[in-house]
């Protein structure tokens, strides 16, 4: 009996092994993507909205059959809108969870992790990083899906120059996003014939901004404010309490619905800003906006960069599919190939998947517009002038970049 049982067990084990090797398909590996973004802190509103957009993309990808036969899984970490939080979150996502790529990062975190991304061979996608540093430092393992502050600063100067020739600039120190845009705005405004009446730099740690506001509005009725959302909220509260009036120019960090709702419309027609402008008739945008509305219950806002957050996931998934691998280096090598011309223009992951399976080259045209990466992993964006209206932001017009002001 004992001999028979051993013989039977050997046959069963051999059969299982043979079936595994010959007939049964290998289990496909899931495509793990980290979402490392500010869900709390200054970038909280953008992070929350962007996470919803990324989830819309993931659902669309999985509905189309997933990546390399496996499902895409988003693993979320809150970086508290800080570079320090990004480094901590990176370790959790990359070293512990083993993600193939990290998406959703802001400027400070992307710059802090620039070398680490290359060393780990894990691509970083920046949906809304503005820092001018990425204009030349990106393209290896850091890629961004929006124009840089070097463009935004110029366009802000264009908008301001149409309203005034004399402006005061208030800049919060210690942040890539705020100092970077002011450093571009100031020379651009000067190139356009404008005068910087006051260049006020201050720490966000101040208990009150009364003195800074007094100096700014003492110098000009037109004031450009470059702060993060938390500091901007405090500063604008004091601005409203002292009723300074005048005209405000706000950087994208302040183009949030919380700001638009200030003082029950007190900023309507008083504050102006720059925000990405999207072609709302483009099939990718229509498809995204429909899915986003169905998931979240509202349309994407012109100020929240949701299409960019969505596109970063689609591009990563297409690159992994084109590479036939979930390895970071292989994905990195395909990011420009699936996005840039030449190739069949595709407006969704599903169309891209079909084309790739047919052996065709593709050029993804996203919800945020053409995703044409240059050698530094940057894309060109279109921008619009926005102003608060009824608790939200409305686009007044699209603005074409005046390269003479650069």
């Amino acid at each position: 009996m004992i001999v028979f049982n051993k013989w039977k067990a050997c046959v069963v084990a051999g059969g299982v092994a043979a079936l595994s090797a010959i007939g049964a398909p290998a289990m496909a590996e899931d495509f793990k993507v980290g979402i490392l973004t500010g869900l709390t802190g200054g970038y909280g509103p953008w992070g929350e909205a962007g996470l919803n957009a990324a989830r819309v993309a993931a659902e669309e990808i999985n509905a189309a059959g997933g990546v390399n036969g496996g499902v895409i899984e988003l693993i979320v970490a809150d970086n508290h809108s800080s570079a320090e939080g990004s480094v901590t979150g990176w370790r959790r996502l990359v070293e512990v969870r083993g993600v193939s790529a990290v998406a959703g990062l802001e400027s400070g975190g992307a710059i802090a992790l620039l070398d680490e991304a290359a060393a780990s061979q894990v691509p970083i996608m920046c949906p809304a990083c503005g820092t001018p540093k990425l204009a030349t430092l990106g393209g290896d393992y850091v890629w961004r899906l929006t124009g840089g502050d070097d463009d935004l600063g110029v366009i802000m100067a264009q908008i301001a120059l149409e309203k005034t020739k004399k402006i005061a600039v208030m800049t919060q120190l210690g942040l890539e996003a705020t100092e970077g845009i002011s450093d571009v705005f100031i020379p651009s405004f000067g190139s356009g014939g404008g005068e910087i009446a006051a260049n006020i730099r201050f720490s966000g740690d101040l208990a009150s901004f009364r003195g800074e506001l007094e100096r700014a509005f003492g110098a000009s009725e037109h004031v450009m404010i470059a702060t993060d959302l938390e500091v901007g909220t405090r500063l604008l509260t004091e601005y409203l309490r002292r009723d300074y009036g005048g005209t405000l120019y706000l950087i994208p960090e302040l183009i949030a619905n919380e700001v638009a709702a200030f003082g029950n419309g007190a900023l309507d027609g008083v504050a102006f800003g720059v925000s990405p402008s999207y072609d709302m008739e483009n099939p990718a945008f229509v498809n995204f906006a429909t899915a986003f509305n169905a998931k979240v219950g509202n349309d994407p806002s012109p100020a929240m960069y949701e299409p960019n957050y969505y596109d970063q996931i689609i591009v990563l998934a297409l690159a992994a599919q084109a590479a036939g691998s979930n390895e970071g280096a292989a994905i990195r090598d395909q990011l420009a190939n699936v996005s840039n011309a030449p190739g069949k223009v595709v407006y969704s992951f599903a169309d891209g998947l079909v084309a790739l399976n047919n052996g065709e080259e593709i050029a993804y045209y996203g919800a945020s517009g053409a995703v044409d990466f240059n050698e530094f992993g940057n894309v060109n964006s279109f921008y619009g002038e926005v102003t608060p209206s009824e608790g939200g932001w409305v686009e007044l017009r699209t603005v074409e970049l005046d390269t003479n002001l650069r």
Partner: protein
Amino acid sequence: MQFIYFGLITGSVLAVAAAGFAMVRQLEGFLNIAHGQYLLLGGLFTAGFYKLGLNIFVAGFLASVAVGLVGVAIAWMVFFPLRYKGLLSQFFSSIGVAFVVYGLVLATWSGSGIKVIPADFGRPFDLGSISVTFGELMIIGVSWLTVLMLHFFLTKTTMGVWIRAVASNRELARVRSVPSDIVMSVVWFAASAMAGLAGVLVGLLGSVHSELGWQYILTILAVSVMGGVNNLYGVMAAGLILGLVVDLSSVFISSQYGTIVTFGAIILTLIIRPQGLFSMQKRNEAGQ
């Protein structure tokens, strides 16, 4: 003149905040680092009460009282049992309490990182060459009314006499049947409530944010060193002076150097007059 006025506002709030800190220092002997977090609680409670539909003055009063009660409760739970373990134990425990309060606030904080108390005090108007608002004048008025009330409380009431007795010599006061536990509870209530009130005033000036407590405790420490940690009135005067110095300095140098001004003032005070600008210590020694 406008910046002197701004300095007066800053200094008035600092005087209220530092007075409570100095009271605890005088009676307990240690620096209560949790005092800054009581400011934060004051601002938060006011925002909460105001959101419930209460009048801003009622909301601010209730918030101050609530913070006072929190301060007494924490004192009984943490600081009183540690009284005989030494000042360092109490000091380090106060740091622990500060982090616990801060952590609880973060854990229960909802919405964005900023709480704005949307009370409307009307448009600014000119008072001579200075632009003022009713809200700012009220903040200065409430601050100095509180300081005056504290002065009368300490000098004209039986409890005030007891408090001064305990501050001078706790053992002697106990022998003379002064109810020291009640006295200490009253002191902790008053000190914490004043921190809460300072938080209310800060919230009314601008907004309340999660780092408020940490920001203010450093300035309060600076004020205490300048005023002389054992001199309540000196600390209040130092609060006013430091507020004026910081706001006026922003006219001449960038406000990013405000911290340097604040702590530069501490270093200068420690070098020139280590006992504090208004300390009576030397004079008392001379008189003996």
